[in-house]
């Protein structure tokens, strides 16, 4: 696409708003996976590279359930339960033995998990045709649109925004209004003190992994109708999710969502529009989105909402 063909940002308000709202929707998916990364990072200082692939694995299970004529909502709940169990299982069997190892070692362990889940998913579901199509939520299909006064929005994107809001509200309620959430926050804050207060730290970490895995699974099931299910489905998502988590600040759950949405919108706008004489074009869109990430990091090295770690010497 040439500069002459690319729409100018101020000429086409409707297209601009369309792209912004669509960006909010895809950004919410990045945000959900980023939220999963943040939940684990907050309590264990580890970036979980396997987050996306765990989500991919359970989404494939969801696909099998749909093939077996299971109702969408029932399938959704089953997949969430499975994701939770998987997260807890991984924490218990793989992460706990290396808990006290240097952080880089745990990162390598999660990279190992990445390849394991990816290849297992391809081994089990890759025999038939790939990519597989995944159904959209009952709220609306991927191809139908809602026409609002100011913009049009695909129905599935609308569903994404609704569900992402639901997940955030549920997590907010859990962390701020329940005793369990308080215990989890205490564990993330200071493990030794939490243990002294009688909190079962190991169980809280396990629960954190389960919650993160569930948040990632929601992201997986929401992105699958858009870009189909394949071995590489989650790879792009996880890279953007890393960027989102870091942009928002690795220790801030709201930051993850904000970061995801910011990256989603930027990516969409840069892909579509020329800003005056500048048109970067679709092939450099991801580079531009990441450039913004790096620029933000240079001004705020711990992300938008992250806390500067203060260390006593």
């Amino acid at each position: 696409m040439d500069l002459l063909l690319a729409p100018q940002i101020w000429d086409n308000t409707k297209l601009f708003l369309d792209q912004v709202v669509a960006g909010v929707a895809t950004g919410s998916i990045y945000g959900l996976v980023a939220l999963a990364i943040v939940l684990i990072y907050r309590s264990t200082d580890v970036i979980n590279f396997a987050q996306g692939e765990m989500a991919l694995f359970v989404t494939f299970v969801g696909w099998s359930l749909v093939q077996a004529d299971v109702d969408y909502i029932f399938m959704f709940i089953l997949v969430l339960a499975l994701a939770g169990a998987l997260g807890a299982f991984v924490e218990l069997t793989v992460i706990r033995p290396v808990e006290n190892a240097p952080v880089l070692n745990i990162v390598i362990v999660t990279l190992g998990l990445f390849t394991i889940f990816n290849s297992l998913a391809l081994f089990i579901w890759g025999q038939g045709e790939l990519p597989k199509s995944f159904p959209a939520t009952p709220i609306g299909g991927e191809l139908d649109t809602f026409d609002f006064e100011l913009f049009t929005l695909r129905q599935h994107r609308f569903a994404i925004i609704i569900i992402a809001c639901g997940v955030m509200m549920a997590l907010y309620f859990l962390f701020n209004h329940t005793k369990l959430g308080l215990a989890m926050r205490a564990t993330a804050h200071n493990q030794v003190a939490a243990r002294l207060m009688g909190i079962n730290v190991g169980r809280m970490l396990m629960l954190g992994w389960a919650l993160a895995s569930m948040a990632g699974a929601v992201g997986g099931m929401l992105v699958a109708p858009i870009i189909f299910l394949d071995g590489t489905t989650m790879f792009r998502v996880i890279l953007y999710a890393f960027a989102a988590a870091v942009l928002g600040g690795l220790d801030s759950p709201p930051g993850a969502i904000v970061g995801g949405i910011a990256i989603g919108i930027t990516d969409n706008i840069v892909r579509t529009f020329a800003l005056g004489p500048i048109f970067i074009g679709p092939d450099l869109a991801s580079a531009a989105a990441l450039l913004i990430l790096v620029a933000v990091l240079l001004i705020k090295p711990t992300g938008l909402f992250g806390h500067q770690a203060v260390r006593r010497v």
Partner: protein
Amino acid sequence: MPNIIPGIESFTEMLVWAAVAGLAIRFAPIGQPKIRIWVAIAVVLLIVGYMPFEVGTYRTGQLTTIGAWALVALGLNLLTGWSGQISLGHGAFVLIGAYTAAILGDNVEQIGMYVDGGQWPWWLAMLAAGCVSGFVGLLVGIPSLRLTGPYLAVATLALIIAAPSVFEHYDEYTGGRNGLRAPQPGVPGFLDFLGLERSEWFFFLAMFLVILGAAGLWAISNSKWGRAFVAVRESEVAAQAMGVSVARYKVFAFSMSAFYAGVAGALYVFAVSGYVGPQTIAVALSINFLTAIVIGGLGSIMGAIIGGFVVVLLPDVSTDIGSLFLGEQDGARLWPTVYGLILILVMILMPYGMAGFINRLGHTRPGRHLRSLRELPDRISTRMTELRERAAP
């Protein structure tokens, strides 16, 4: 040519022989430890240097690739192992080096910088690739001063995600999506008397560069610079208090390590692929470099070289193990699972990587373990009586 030692002709066996011989000499109960280390290195180098004459062109090419990635790992280990900065984006520096080498070696009319009115000689192009990459490393290193740990990791990851599309976009120099061909250098005149084939010459070139790189890293790590890196890694505040300029050393580490990566990229283009395109270095490979040095051993020269082997051979080894347990077909499809399991197991069993494990072997005292095993029944019975007394006062 008759085999000197029966059964040694296969690639894996020769590598195992080299490792076993090296370890045996390293831990032999005779002579000075320092001398034994040098002898072990010499023996391993001799065996590996003999390999290209035995294992065929394909395996020799693989060894050359191992050399290129070992060079990247050496540089990355300087950055991560010594100075404590994590980079997931070293593939970007390799890519920069590869493109520089390819442009200077073939497409030089595009930039109009000739040497003797023609293409650059390969060795000069290689050096230039290192310098360009090192300069970009400097430019990246300065802003990276503000970032630490995972933030730096993701920012560098952004580098390798963005780099291919940038190279593809500016296609007047880089050939865009199609990439560039680079001429592969022929055997130089002063080596004619050896009668080397091309693949063998490429292998010895790679081996020479790895030895040079390892020696360079050894010299750096044993100098004032190396101690400064370690001081910065352990505590920036303390290093600053002792008068170490934290910023200068961190940027220097970044630039130096990018230099290594650039030379490795040029080596890859000239000696392995003869081609560079936007997809030459995938994101996964770039992440694999970090995996390699952690598995090999952080802050260890031997660890970095093991890392080169890890990048290239671990997939093969995983496939072999997979086929052993699951049969030929499933093993070939499930090799990443085995690969992941190996990564996890190594990290659980060898927290300081393979090099750390080998070093620890040197500190084990078999006699002490035997003695403590022999004393175990006694210890258990005393403990039992103790517990029994406490239970029934």
